[in-house]
C-alpha cells in the first residue's frame, strides 16, 4: 500500500495494522525516516516537502513493484508525508513483510534508496542560515546504483 499524505501518521497504529495483516510472514522490517534537527552547523526550523499529485504516487509504485519483483512474496507499506514538517517529525515509513528476514531487510533498503533518488519529491529546509532546496548527495546516487550493478551482475 502506498500513501502520500499531508497529515501526520501514527507509527504505533500503522505498525500494528501492518503486523496484524501479515501474520503469515516470518519477518517484518520497518524503517522510519525523521526530519533532522541539524544540517551541518545550521539548525533546521522547518522542512517543506512538495510533490506532484498523481505522478509522485506513480513513481513510488514503480519502485515498490521493482522491490516486489526482486523479492517475490514480499508485502510492503510505504507512507510519505508532504507539506510542512518540524524537526523530529516522521517523514517516511517503509515496512516489508517476507517469509525470511533477508528479503524484508533488503526490500526496505531498496525502496528507501530509490525513494531518495527517483520518487518525485522536492525538499526545502528552512534553517538558521536561510532557505535551502535539498538535492540528493553523491552517496545517495551511489546507494541506488549499487542495486542496479547487482542486477546487472546476476543477469
Amino acid at each position, binding site marked *: 500500500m502506498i500513501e502520500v499524505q499531508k497529515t501526520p501518521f501514527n507509527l504505533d497504529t500503522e505498525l500494528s495494522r501492518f503486523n496484524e495483516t501479515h501474520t503469515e510472514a516470518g519477518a517484518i522490517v520497518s524503517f522510519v525516516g525523521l526530519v533532522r534537527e541539524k544540517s551541518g552547523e545550521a539548525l533546521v526550523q522547518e522542512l517543506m516537502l512538495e510533490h*506532484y499529485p498523481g505522478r509522485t504516487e506513480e513513481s513510488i509504485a514503480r519502485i515498490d513493484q521493482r522491490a516486489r519483483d526482486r523479492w517475490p512474496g514480499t508485502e510492503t507499506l510505504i507512507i510519505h508525508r508532504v507539506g510542512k514538517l518540524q524537526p523530529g517529525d516522521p517523514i517516511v515509513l517503509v515496512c516489508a513483510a517476507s517469509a525470511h528476514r533477508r528479503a524484508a531487510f533488503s526490500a526496505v533498503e531498496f525502496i528507501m534508496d530509490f*525513494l531518495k533518488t527517483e520518487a518525485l*519529491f*522536492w*525538499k*526545502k529546509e528552512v534553517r538558521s542560515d536561510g532557505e535551502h*532546496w535539498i538535492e540528493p548527495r553523491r552517496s545517495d546516487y551511489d546507494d541506488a546504483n549499487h542495486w542496479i550493478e547487482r542486477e546487472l551482475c546476476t543477469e
Partner: protein
Amino acid sequence: MPQVLFFGRLREIAEAAGRAITFEPTTKTVENLVLRIASLDPDLGEAIKKPGVRCMVDGLLIPIDENAFEISTAKEIAFLPPVSGG
C-alpha cells in the same frame, strides 16, 4: 493548450515572476518550449537549463533538449528539478 507546471525551486522562480507560460504556433517540442519560457522569463529559462532538470509530458520523462517529440496535444507538461524524497 497544455498546462505547464513547475516544481521545487523552479516553481518558486515561476511564481516570483507570476507570468503565465503561453504557447506560440511554433511551440511544438520540449526544446521549443524551453526557448519560449526563456524568452518570457529569463531567470526561469536559466534555472531550467541547469543540470539535473527533467521534463515530464503526461507522465513520460522527456529530455530537456528533445526536438522531435510532439507536445502541442499534451495535457500537462511539468519541469522537475532534482528530486529528494525519503
